[in-house]
């Protein structure tokens, strides 16, 4: 029997039918949707990373007594860069499963991914979402340890402290630090006192006195704004510098 006859016989006897067109169209659109979703999530991730870089205290290497270049490399938002890389990989996976995705060279796909996530992420950051995403991530276990920027503010021995103001009394505040420990902070000779109010997140530079007491020389806002409406249209640091005066 000729092959063509064998195949037609098999098709008819086994009732083989072409997969419906809608199935293929749906599958293609699903991969396109997943590709777009990876870009959108990448944008959110980018905005959190951008927030960390834009609000970095670049002079902290003085307190940490470390080399400037090493410090700059240390404070890059590696956690967010890793997540961005994961979603970049997912975007390529989905792109190359679309009907015509294979025609795009990987370099072009990577460039498009970076440009779209950067633009979208920058927009989210400008609207204050970067800080909200980063603060939400702070609730993830071990995030503080993974995030050098947060971790550096737990180096109490180097005179660095950060946390939420729990209560205020004459010349001292009670602070819940990033590790959940409570401290008594002497604020008798500190700058930035206008930032002191309950529930405020702050960064403190000073000197560790003992395991529960810290003497502050300078108090700064943690980002300062927490995405407050007033900072929109202004850079976070510009807004926070104005608050400190």
């Amino acid at each position, binding site marked *: 029997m*000729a*092959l*063509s*006859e*064998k*195949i*037609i016989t*098999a*098709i*008819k006897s086994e009732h*083989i*039918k*072409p*997969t*419906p*067109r809608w*199935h*293929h169209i749906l599958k293609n659109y699903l991969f396109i949707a997943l590709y777009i979703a990876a870009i959108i999530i990448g944008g959110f991730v980018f905005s959190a990373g951008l927030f960390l870089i834009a609000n970095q205290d670049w002079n902290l290497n003085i307190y940490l007594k470390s080399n400037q270049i090493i410090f700059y490399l240390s404070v890059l938002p590696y956690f967010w860069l890793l997540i961005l890389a994961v979603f970049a990989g997912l975007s390529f996976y989905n792109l*190359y499963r679309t*009907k*015509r995705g*294979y*025609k*795009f*060279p990987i370099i072009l796909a990577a460039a498009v991914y970076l440009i779209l996530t950067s633009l979208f992420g920058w927009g989210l950051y400008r609207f204050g979402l970067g800080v909200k995403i980063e603060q939400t991530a702070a609730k993830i276990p071990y995030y503080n340890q993974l995030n050098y920027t947060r971790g550096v503010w737990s180096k109490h021995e180097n005179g660095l402290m950060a946390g939420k103001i729990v209560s205020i009394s004459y010349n001292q505040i009670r602070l819940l630090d990033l590790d959940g420990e409570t401290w008594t902070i002497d604020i008798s000779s500190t700058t930035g006192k206008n930032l002191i109010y309950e529930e405020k997140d702050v960064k403190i530079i000073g000197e560790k006195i003992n395991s529960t007491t810290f003497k502050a020389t300078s108090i700064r806002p943690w980002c300062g704004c927490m995405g407050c409406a007033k900072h929109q249209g202004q850079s976070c640091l510009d807004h926070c510098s104005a608050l400190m005066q």
Partner: protein
Amino acid sequence: MLEKQEYTLQSDEEIVKTTLVNSDCFAILVERYEQKFLRYIYRLLGRNEIDAEDILQEAFIKIYQHLNDFDSSLKFSSWGYRIVRNETIDKIRRQNKNLTVKLTEEEFIQIADKFELHQKLDDDLLKQKILNSINSLKIKYREPLILFLLEEKSYEEISDILCKPVGTVGSLINRGKSKLKNLLA
């Protein structure tokens, strides 16, 4: 309804549309491509006749099942080759075999011409050298080279068959040719 002879004058793309209405017309596509696809499977599998014919049959059935997915911006032959290639690679993986090429006399001549090997081709050592050289190449070079040198496909067609960008296909072929030339020197 057209007579079978009239269908044979239609393009592949037209026959695909007709097949979706009348499955008997698929026989025309099978007749058009069975020799080409079988030869390609032999080149990938290394002349195992039983396996090759089974794979060919499964590939054609898969082509029929996916007819609604055929993108008319592609050539039907490129799309068909893609399905045949995937079926063959799957079979090789399932059997845990390696992709080894075996060549006909004609194919040896083709390669010898392309690489300007002027020794006599009744020289068994040269034939063995050509075969060993091709088989020693990594699969990522071997596959596009087989399609380019032996199936005489264009870069665009190879891109559609292997689902790789045209630029990547070009790089792989150039690097493969260079490696093969060094091995044959």
